[in-house]
């Protein structure tokens, strides 16, 4: 096992910059997720670490070793592809055993290792089947087994759960977490699914346009997004934003927009220009009677999810979303009053978090 250090790598495809001067340090035993919109360079970053792409600039270290110019095979990392990439002409047994075979391990030992791993993933019944005879979820476990069996220094997983159905995904997610804790292998995990990232990771890396926007613990990312991009990207339903300015009124700092007047905690660095107020849906409480400091709104849409209800309400022309635990007495077109619990302030122009 080893840490993975990515130092200022850049990768271009023709004119397109897939990864732009990206640095990241994944510590030993750590589980780090890469999160970001499609095309932001997650896969490319992984492939650079794996050695399937050669970065145009920058260096990559695995443990103490500079692997930037090493062939994939000499890096001792395992990559689980979104498409699984099982060898179609080999049985499950031979698929999992292949990396061991390449290391010259003799057949009895190999079989023992393969069977042990297969047992761990609950696919020991499927060892003599070919990939085409396996379901998506089973193929995925074979791919994971093949990665695990050789005890690599680092695991790279590119959306390994995206091809399986929602129910199995939840199971596999739990299994992955258990596995990683058990084996303690340094893991870089790519996902589109925020819940996956938030639940699995020790730390999350949010990327955009080939650069890192924020690195942090899941709750940090959620509660203290470094900038507007991260704030907008993480969380579902997304954070509500209001544009306005800060005023000092009677020794208090107040956020003022067309529709809102909200007293806020004064940021350390007072901005020179306009600010954006961000409020998570769960920090926006819905009240059915007016009270001091609450803003009047009209319910436009209700999405009851069973355990909670998403309330879409209009303030003037803005739509805001709120999450309420108990929405049974609400009705569309009803007038309600919204109260802001906790909020974040961003510099509108630079997007940087102020609070």
């Amino acid at each position: 096992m080893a840490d993975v250090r990515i130092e200022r790598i850049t990768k271009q495809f023709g004119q397109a910059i897939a990864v732009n001067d990206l640095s990241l340090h994944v510590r030993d035993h750590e589980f780090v997720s890469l999160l970001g919109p499609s095309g932001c360079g997650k896969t490319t970053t992984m492939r650079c670490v794996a050695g399937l792409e050669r970065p145009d600039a920058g260096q990559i270290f695995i443990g103490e070793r500079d692997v930037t110019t090493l062939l994939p095979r000499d890096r001792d990392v395992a990559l689980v592809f979104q498409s699984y990439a099982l060898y179609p002409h080999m049985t499950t047994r031979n698929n999992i055993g292949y990396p061991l075979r390449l290391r010259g391990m003799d057949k009895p030992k190999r079989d023992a290792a393969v069977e042990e791993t297969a047992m761990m993933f609950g696919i020991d019944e499927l060892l003599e089947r070919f990939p085409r005879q396996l379901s998506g979820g089973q193929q995925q476990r074979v791919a994971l087994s093949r990665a695990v069996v050789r005890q690599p220094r680092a695991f790279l997983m590119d959306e390994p759960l995206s091809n399986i159905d929602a129910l199995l995904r939840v199971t596999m997610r739990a299994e992955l977490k258990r596995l990683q804790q058990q084996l303690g292998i340094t893991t870089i995990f790519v996902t589109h699914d925020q819940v996956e990232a938030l639940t699995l990771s020790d730390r999350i890396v949010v990327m955009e346009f080939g650069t890192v926007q924020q690195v942090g613990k899941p709750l940090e990312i959620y509660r203290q997004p470094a900038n507007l991009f991260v704030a907008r990207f993480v969380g579902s339903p997304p954070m509500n934003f209001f544009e306005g300015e800060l005023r000092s009124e009677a020794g208090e700092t107040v956020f003022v927009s067309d529709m809102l007047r909200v007293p806020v905690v004064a940021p350390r660095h007072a901005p020179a220009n306009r600010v954006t107020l961000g409020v998570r849906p769960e920090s926006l409480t819905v009240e059915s009677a007016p009270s001091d400091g609450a803003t009047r709104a009209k319910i436009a849409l209700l999405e009851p999810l069973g355990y909670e209800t998403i309330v879409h309400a209009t303030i003037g022309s803005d739509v805001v979303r709120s999450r309420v635990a108990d929405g049974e007495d609400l009705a569309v077109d009803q007038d309600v009053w919204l109260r802001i619990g906790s909020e974040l302030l961003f510099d509108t122009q630079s997007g940087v978090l102020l609070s």
Partner: protein
Amino acid sequence: MSVRSLPLATNRPGRWQAVQHLWQIPEQRLALLLLLPSLLVVLLTMLYPLIVTIRMALSSERGQFVGLGNLTRLATTNIFLESMSFTLRFSAFVVIVSLLLGLGLALVVNSIYVPMKTLWITILIIPLMVSDIVSAVVWRLMYHPTIGILNYALSLVGLPRVDWLGKSSTAFFSVGIIEIWRSAPFFFIMLYAALQLIPPDVYESASVDGAGGVRAFFDMTLPYLRPVMTVALMLQFIGATRAFGIIVGATEGGPGRATWTISYFIYRYAFRAQQMHFASAAVLVLVLLTIVAGVLFFRFVWVQRDAA
């Protein structure tokens, strides 16, 4: 022992080491290196003869330069023009009938009423594997005036015997049928494969929209088949214009010169009449036509996956 402490098998010296080293060179250079032998073989086989042919076509049989003499002579040689005309009519006849037969068979075998489809496919593609010369022989036995089965069948229903391959009026169709026998299975298998690629929900949504049977065929099936159909048509048309073995085997160009194809013309002049230079002029014409066909083919027909 931990797996990691084991050396990679491929790092150890072995039989393949020399090749291994070769394969470490930069990708694109390796690509060209691997392609080079095939390219050389294929291109030299086309280019060397082409250059020789051009030189020969521009000189007389005794080697004097005659410029376009051979070509102008070709343009006024009736049998060449007739061979051209026969080749084109023959090829058109063959591919059109083969397409219709192949399409019909593909639809029939694809229908839900047919059990054991694999067996049917196996049987129906057999003629595709039979050589031109053997097909010719096979059908000569069918066509034979006395020992052939066709005339016997005619006599059973009281019709007069026909000299299938011996009369110019029937030779065209008779030879055409031999070629159709070999070529229809190609359309069948291509179109059958293409039918398998049509997503079933296309039909389901069509039937929901109220398009059934014939309507669904023209609105749904045909558009899906068209690209494959075009490719198959082009390939088989080009193939049919090369008909040679079938002519040698079935008619030797006869009766008279009624079934000369371009290939047969070139063969007769080059190797029977020993006029290789004159024959080269015909080769040149054939190559030019092939280039035109090739450009059309790769420009407009073979777009499918290379565009992706």
